[in-house]
C-alpha cells in the first residue's frame, strides 16, 4: 500500500497546477450558474474551455497516443481531476464523448472509424450524446424498441429516445437500435454512430423539474444511416453498449467524487455565513455532525475509487467497490443538497431572480437537479439489484 507519487507523477501534478493557475477564466462560476450541472447558456464557454485544455494536452490522458491521447495511466487522470477540483476549474463539456464514446470506438471501431472520430472528441469539435433510454425502456434497457431496418447499404431508423443529455447541442449520438426483433432481446440490438444532422432526427427539449431543458427527447423518422456507421457487429450492440456503460462508471466516477468535494466546500462556505438561532451554522453541534458526516462519506468515495483504480492499474477489473461507488455518490450528494436547503432555512424558497436569493439561487437549482441522480445512469434500485445478484450472488 502506497499513496505516494512517482517523481514523474509529482512533476505532472506541478505542471497541471501551474497551468490551471494561469488559465482558469475568472468568474466562470457566475457564467455557469452551478458547479454541478452547466446551465444551457454556458455551453459555448465550456466548449472553448475544453478546447483550451486539449491544446495543453490534458484531455484523453488514458487514451492511446495513436488515437490522439497521451498514453498515460489512470493515475495521471486522477491527478488531473484532483487538481481541477482544488483549482475550482470549470467542468469538461464533452464528457460523454471523452469518457464513453471515444473509448468504445477505440475498443470496437474499424480503422476508418478510429481515424474519423476520436480526435474531434478530444478537441471538443464534436460533442456526443447517448441514445440509450426510451419512454418504455429505462431500467429494462434491453427492451428498447427503436427499430433499424436494413435497406440496401443503409439502415432506416424509426423510434424515440428520451432523457438525452446534450442532444440539442450534440453532433453525434451513440445509438442503440433493434435490428432483429425476433432474436432474444439482448441479441437483436446494434450500436450505431449517428450524425445528429441527418434528416429525420428531431430533438425536442424536455423541460424538467428545475425548469430548464437539460435533457431532450429525440425522435427518428425514417432516418437513413449508412452501414459503415455500425460500431462492432450487427446484432452485437448490447455488448458494445455495456462496454460504454463500464467506461461511464469508471471515467465519470472519479470526476463525480471530485465535483462532490467542490460542492461540499461551497456548502461549508455557505454554512459559515449563515446563522441559526443567533449562532453561526458551523458552530451548531448538530450541523457540525451533519457536515462532518458528508466529509467522511465524500472521502470514503475517494478511497473506494482509489481501490478500484488500483485494480485497473494492475490490469484487473474493479470488484464490488466499483459497484458501490455510484450508490454512495448519489446518496451523499442528495443528502448534501438537502442540507444546503436546511442551512438556508426560509431562504431556500427563493429562486434566482431576486437579490434575496442566496448564492444567486444556485443551490435551489442543484437541489432540484440532484433528484435525478438516483434515476439517471441506472436507478438506485437497479444498482442494488446488480450488487445483490452480481456481487453477492443472490438469486434473481
Amino acid at each position, binding site marked *: *500500500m*502506497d*499513496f*505516494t*507519487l512517482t517523481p514523474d507523477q509529482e512533476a505532472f501534478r506541478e505542471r497541471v497546477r501551474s497551468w490551471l493557475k494561469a488559465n482558469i477564466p475568472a468568474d466562470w462560476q457566475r457564467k455557469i450558474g452551478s458547479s454541478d450541472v452547466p446551465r444551457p447558456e454556458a455551453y459555448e464557454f465550456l466548449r472553448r474551455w475544453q478546447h483550451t485544455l486539449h491544446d495543453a494536452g490534458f484531455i484523453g490522458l488514458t487514451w492511446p497516443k495513436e488515437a490522439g491521447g497521451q498514453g498515460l495511466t489512470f*493515475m495521471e487522470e*486522477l491527478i488531473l481531476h484532483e487538481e481541477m477540483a482544488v483549482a475550482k476549474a470549470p467542468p469538461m463539456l464533452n464528457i460523454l464523448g471523452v469518457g464513453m464514446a471515444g473509448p468504445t470506438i477505440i475498443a470496437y471501431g474499424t480503422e476508418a472509424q478510429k481515424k474519423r472520430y476520436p480526435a474531434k472528441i478530444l478537441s471538443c469539435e464534436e460533442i456526443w450524446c447517448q441514445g440509450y433510454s426510451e419512454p418504455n425502456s429505462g431500467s429494462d434497457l434491453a427492451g428498447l424498441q427503436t427499430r433499424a431496418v436494413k435497406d440496401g447499404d443503409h439502415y432506416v431508423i424509426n423510434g424515440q429516445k428520451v432523457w438525452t443529455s446534450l442532444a440539442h447541442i450534440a453532433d453525434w449520438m451513440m445509438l442503440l437500435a433493434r435490428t432483429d426483433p425476433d432474436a432474444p432481446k439482448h441479441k437483436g440490438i446494434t450500436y450505431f454512430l449517428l450524425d445528429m444532422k441527418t434528416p429525420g432526427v428531431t430533438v425536442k427539449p424536455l423541460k424538467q423539474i428545475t425548469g430548464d431543458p437539460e435533457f431532450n427527447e429525440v425522435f427518428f423518422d425514417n432516418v437513413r444511416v449508412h452501414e459503415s456507421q455500425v460500431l462492432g457487429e450487427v446484432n452485437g450492440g448490447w455488448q458494445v453498449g455495456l462496454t460504454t456503460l463500464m467506461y461511464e462508471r469508471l471515467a465519470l466516477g472519479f470526476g463525480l467524487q471530485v465535483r462532490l468535494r467542490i460542492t461540499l466546500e461551497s456548502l*461549508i462556505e455557505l*454554512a459559515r455565513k449563515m446563522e441559526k438561532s443567533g449562532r453561526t451554522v*458551523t458552530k451548531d*453541534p448538530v450541523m*457540525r*455532525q451533519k*457536515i*462532518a*458526516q458528508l*466529509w*467522511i*462519506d465524500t*472521502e*470514503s*468515495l475517494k*478511497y*473506494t475509487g*482509489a*481501490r478500484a*483504480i*488500483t*485494480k485497473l*492499474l*494492475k490490469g484487473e477489473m474493479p470488484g*464490488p*467497490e466499483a459497484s*458501490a461507488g455510484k*450508490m*454512495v455518490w448519489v446518496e451523499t450528494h442528495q443528502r448534501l443538497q438537502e442540507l444546503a436547503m436546511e442551512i438556508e432555512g426560509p431562504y431556500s424558497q427563493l429562486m434566482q431572480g431576486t437579490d434575496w436569493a442566496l448564492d444567486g439561487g444556485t443551490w435551489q437549482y442543484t437541489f432540484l437537479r440532484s433528484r435525478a441522480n438516483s434515476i439517471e445512469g441506472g436507478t438506485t*434500485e437497479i*444498482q*442494488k*439489484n446488480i*450488487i*445483490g*445478484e452480481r*456481487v*453477492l*450472488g*443472490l*438469486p*434473481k
Partner: protein
Amino acid sequence: MDFGFSPEQEMLRATARKFLENECKSEFVRARMAEPAGVTDEFWKKLGEQGWLGLVYPEEFGGTGLGFVDLTVLMEEMGRAVMPGPFLSTLLGGLAILEAGSSDQKKEWLGKISDGTAKATLAWTEPSARWDAPGVTTTARAAGGGFTLTGTKLFVPDAHVADVLVVVARTSEGKRAEDGVSLFLVPRGAKGLTTKLLPTMDQTRKLCEVKLEDTPATLLGAKDGGWAPLERVVQRATVALCAEMCGGAQKVLDMTTEYAKIRIAFGKPIGSYQGVKHRAADMLVDVENAKSLTYYAAWAVDENVPEAALASSMAKAYTSDAYRKVAGAGIQLHGGIGFTWEHDLHLYFKRAKSSEFTFGDATYHREKVAQLINL
C-alpha cells in the same frame, strides 16, 4: 499509488484465516466467553509463535517489525473470527510502551509481550467516561524518587489478566488539561492495586474497574508529557480496532448472504426478494466504505502523514455506524434464528456494540473530524 495489499500481506491473511478457523471456532469463543480470563495459555502461546503479538514492534525489542497495514490484515481476520481475549488491550499497552518508554522499558516489556509471556493493558478512562484530557483525574504524587497513584479507572480492558498496566494519571494542573498528564507503568500485584471484572454485554471483551490507592508506579516517558504519546497510541489502536470491526462486518455479510440463498419462504430463496436483496446491497456498501476508510487510515498512521489523525477519526466514525448497522441487518434478515443464543450472529452484534463505544463513538469522532477540517 497502490491501494491494495502486497502478496506477503495476502499470505498473512490466508495464514491467519486458516489458523483462526482451526483454533478459534465458535465453541472456543463461547467457552472463553463463559470464563473470566477470556483466553487460554495455549492459544496465547500460539499467537506468540506466529509472531502476531509483537507484529508492529521493532525487531530490536523482540517484535516482528511489520507495520499497521499488516496489522490491519491480521485484525480483520481476528474480527472475522470474533476472537476473544486480551489481544487489543495488550496491543494498547505495548504501543504505549513503544511510544513513550525508555529503551530499557521497551526492551523489558516488548520482548515479553511479543513472545507471549506478558500481557498488558491501558488504564485510561474513568467513571466520567471522557476521552479527553480533563477526564484524567487519577492523581500521581512524587514519593521517594518515584510516584504513587490514586484514583479509579473504568472500562479498562483485560486488567484482570494484565501483567502490566499503563496508567494515565495527572501529575500537575497545567495551563491546559493536556499539559499535566503523564503515563505510568504499574505491574500486576502492585500495592493498592485492585481490579474487578465487570459483567459485559459483549462477553468476548472483558472490562474491569481498576482502583489505585497510593499505588507505586514507574514513570513512562516524560513527566507532564503523556498526552501526546497517548493520543498517538489511541489514534493507532483505533485504526486496528476499525480493521477488526471491518472483518466482523464482512463475516456478518457473508453469513447473511449465504443464508439468503438457502432459506426458502413463499417457495423462493429469500435473497430473491428485493426487500432482502436491497438490504444486503446496503450492507455491502457499508462494509466496503468502512474498509476503504480503514485501509487509508492504516496507511496514514504507518507513514505518519499529517492527516493521520483525521483519517483515524473518519474511519472510526464511519465504521462504528457501519458495523452496528450491518450486524443489526444481519439479525433482521436471518429472522428468528438470528435472535437465538445458539446462532453466532449475536456475538458479532454485541462486538459491534462494544467496539462502537471503544475509543469514542461515531458522534465523538464526527466532532473530531469537524475540528480537524477547521469547521
